[in-house]
């Protein structure tokens, strides 16, 4: 190897950093591959740092802290251990060698150990090879800013704004966040106060839920306008405003690298029948990653994918599942990273073409919208039909391919996800699927269909007090219908609600417990699929 492997090392102040110093004082030599970053405690290291380092080209990342029991801050090192374990799992799925990430306990007196660890690690990395990732660090603000602005202004109709204020008073965020007004953002942008808009906090608080656009008499597409503003703001490189330390976005970006071959099929049930080429392709999405990132929520995201495969098999379909399926890019698009999004779009469409699939079904409304609407704008005609799982299930039930034997005596309330409902106009198929399950009573919330309240977070942005209030409000509304289950067709909605129900939300007066289930899991249950 020509180049020396580069290791970014996070060393805790009390132990590991001191140990490294000792190695220096003792004149113990080791390869010049490590770049130390001092932190007070190894518990300070979050997965976002690790992924950032790897994304930007570090060949290896070392996290080192005190021996268990010795942590200056009680058990920060144990937390670091858990996080590193988790991140390794993510790397494993991603297809980046988990060995590139290493956790060590090095005490202040272990100068020799430090040197040895570096020697070993460097050798190991030489063997593994250089990091295929080396995303450019410069911000991805596109070169053709004026063109982009002109196009956006035209397509989003912002010029037709009548300044009536319907948008602001429909916005779930505006009701809770003083001073937030979509109308004022548009007006400021039009009048030339562009910088104010691009540097504002409000740029990132929009949930892109489409409630404003739905009611706007001038058909202003505010979410798409915000999206472009986000691109203009800084090309989408923005960990500060992303929840979960920008990890999901980082993973999405890393997937664009052709050298990474993911390991994302372990969730498949043993008796599952899938194919590599075929007519119908099931696009799984980010579920394998969510399973790891949100382990603490007890979500079992993979149950969704498993249910889909089981149901399709029952209906006599062997879906194509791509073993190296990339993220659809939704979260990158909505945080403004158009460049990376377009890369993902091209890769995915090319990969799907290889499989010969003429129909692509997604169990995620975000993926659904991204494929059906946003990909079409980038790619053009895609040669395959895009369906949401509810549309496909509805079709299969109508054709008699799926028959429910027993009864499922549950009262179910259905939530319209923003991307499926207001964005794409799909309101009835999920309802018809639920209604066709014998024994199930379907009830509606007052705010349903085009008036459904968003689950409070979009693309992991600006998750905060406001989001939590919105989520609790919605869960309360669901609970008040008296339903047993809150059924949705969006894994993200599920994550957000589960999160607010699990965490201790400040100033919470009552806990809202509502059982949330994905439509596919419900259907699988009803079909008695194990």
């Amino acid at each position, binding site marked *: 190897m020509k180049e020396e492997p580069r290791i970014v090392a996070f060393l805790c102040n009390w132990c590991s950093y001191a140990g490294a110093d000792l190695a220096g004082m003792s004149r113990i030599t080791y390869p010049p591959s490590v770049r130390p970053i001092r932190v007070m405690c190894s518990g300070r290291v979050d997965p976002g740092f690790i992924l950032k380092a790897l994304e930007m080209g570090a060949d290896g990342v070392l996290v080192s802290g005190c021996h268990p029991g010795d942590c200056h801050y009680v058990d920060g090192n144990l937390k670091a251990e858990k996080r590193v374990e988790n991140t390794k799992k993510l790397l494993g799925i991603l297809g980046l060698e988990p060995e590139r990430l290493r956790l060590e306990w090095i005490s202040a007196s272990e100068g020799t150990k430090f040197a040895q660890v570096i020697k070993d690690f460097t050798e190991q990395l030489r063997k593994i090879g250089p990091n295929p990732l080396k995303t450019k660090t410069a911000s991805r603000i596109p070169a053709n800013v004026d063109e982009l602005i002109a196009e956006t202004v035209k397509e989003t109709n912002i010029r037709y704004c009548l300044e009536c204020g319907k948008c602001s*008073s429909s916005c779930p965020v505006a*009701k809770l966040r003083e001073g937030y007004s979509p109308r004022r953002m548009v007006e400021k942008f039009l009048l030339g106060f562009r910088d104010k808009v691009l540097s504002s906090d409000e740029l990132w608080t929009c949930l892109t839920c489409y409630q404003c656009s739905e009611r706007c008499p001038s*058909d202003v597409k505010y979410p798409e306008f915000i999206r472009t503003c986000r691109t203009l703001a800084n090309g989408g490189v923005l960990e500060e405003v992303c929840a979960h330390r920008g990890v999901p976005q980082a993973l999405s970006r890393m997937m664009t690298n052709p050298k990474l071959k993911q390991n994302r099929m372990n969730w498949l049930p043993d008796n599952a029948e899938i194919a590599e080429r075929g007519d119908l392709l099931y696009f799984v999405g980010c579920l394998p990653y969510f399973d790891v990132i949100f382990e603490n929520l007890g979500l079992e995201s993979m149950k969704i994918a498993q249910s889909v495969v089981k149901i399709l098999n029952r209906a006599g379909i062997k879906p194509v599942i791509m073993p190296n399926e990339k993220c659809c890019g939704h979260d990158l698009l909505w945080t403004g990273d158009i460049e990376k999004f377009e890369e993902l779009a091209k890769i995915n469409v090319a990969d799907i073409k290889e499989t010969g699939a003429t129909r692509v079904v997604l169990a995620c409304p975000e993926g659904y919208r991204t494929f059906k609407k946003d990909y079409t704008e980038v790619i053009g005609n895609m040669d395959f039909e895009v369906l949401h799982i509810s549309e496909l299930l509805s079709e299969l039930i109508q054709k008699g391919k799926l028959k429910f034997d027993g009864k499922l005596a549950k009262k179910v309330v259905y939530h319209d996800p923003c991307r499926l409902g207001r964005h794409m106009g799909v309101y009835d198929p999920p309802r018809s699927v639920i209604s066709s399950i014998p024994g199930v009573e379907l009830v509606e919330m007052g705010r349903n269909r085009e008036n459904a309240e968003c689950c409070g977070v979009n693309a992991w942005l600006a998750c905060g007090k406001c989001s939590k209030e919105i989520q609790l409000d919605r869960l309360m509304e669901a609970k008040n219908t008296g339903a047993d289950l809150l059924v949705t067709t969006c894994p993200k909605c599920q994550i957000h609600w589960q999160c607010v129900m699990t965490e201790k939300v400040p100033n919470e007066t009552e806990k809202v417990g509502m059982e949330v289930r994905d439509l596919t899991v419900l259907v699988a249950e009803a079909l008695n699929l194990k």
Partner: protein
Amino acid sequence: MKKTNSVLVIGGGIAGMQASLDLASRGMRVYLVEKTPSIGGRMAQLDKTFPTMDCSMCILAPKMVDTFRHPNITLLTYSEIMEVSGSVGNFTVKVLKKPRFVNPEKCTGCGICAQHCPVEVPNEFDMNLGVRKAIYVPFPQAAPLVYTIDEDNCLKCELCGKVCLAGAIDYDQKPELLTLNVGAIVVATGYDLFDVRKRTEYGYGKYPNVMISLEFERMESASGPTGGHIVRLSDGRVPEKIAFIQCVGSRSIKGGLPYCSSACCMYATKEAVLIREHNPKCEVYIFYNDLKVFGKGFQDFINRAEDTWGVKYVRALPGEITEDSKTGKLIVWYEDTTENAIKNLKADIVVLCPALIPKPDNKKLAKILGVELDQHGFFKSKDPMLAPIDTTVPGIFIAGYCQGPKDIPESVAQASGASGRAAESMALATVKGVRRTARK
């Protein structure tokens, strides 16, 4: 060429009546065809009119009576146009007189039949807030004051025939097809209301205290279903706060119609003033986007409404209405655009001002007449600036709201205009047997 001195007027509202009276007063024969059982149109449904606050029926009734009694006007109510052929100066029109099953010569308008009729149906005149019988007159000052049997809802129990002292009920009445020969046609079919259920965020149909303006107008009319008492439809209580929402379905590229309905800012102000007159303790808020004050006396009217009557104008269009289930009050969410704050108003009643739209039947009528409709469904003017009253067919003219959004004085002036054009084009058409087209 046959010389005819007759004109057909389609639509018996204020525009149709004005055009008819102008033509009849100068000695021309007018056939006034009206679809419903009585002339009067929308003005009959109004309580007062802006900006003068005249009692609508008081200024309308003399016109109705004049129209009804004028020797030169043949009133064909409960009738429809079936076919039109010919050209300016010589149109042949086939009119279908629908059977009322009541003999107009004998009916005295006493109303005993309605008293005994067992069928109650929602009263369209009262915007379905009240009921009428299957045998009915649309409103007490109807002209002609002849009862009509609503065939679709009649049980055929024949009770009315038994109790009628004048022997006016005629169950065997058949539809009559009349053929008329006229020199010109004036179309004045008026307007309909946008279906506000399409704007689901306002909850019309879901929340009983969300009303549309014409319903509210009927409620506050002394001759309306509540005798002029303004109450909440949900529980009959007297309201403390009433909110008007303008532009529901107007000025919309999506989910409505793109034009401004031009009368709503003013009629909402009128209704607001009436509320304040009726009940000074009730607060009234009008949520608007741009106040349309372009007409004569409009700005003064709004100033009076604000200064003298304390009507509050809020520069905002609300995003949504929710209901406080405990009190039944409606929560109106809006952005106070002058203060940059999201606020809500707890109102007892919300009155939605819907877009005023061309009647859906215009399509059928346009086809029969051979005239064009514009992209909204209004009758198309030959030239919107230079020939607003002419249609694309010489000899056929338009007046009133069916030509485009306008208020009553403009409709009346335009109706006189249409009669002027009708007379002019007929005069030109009969010169030397050569048909002259209308002046460019």
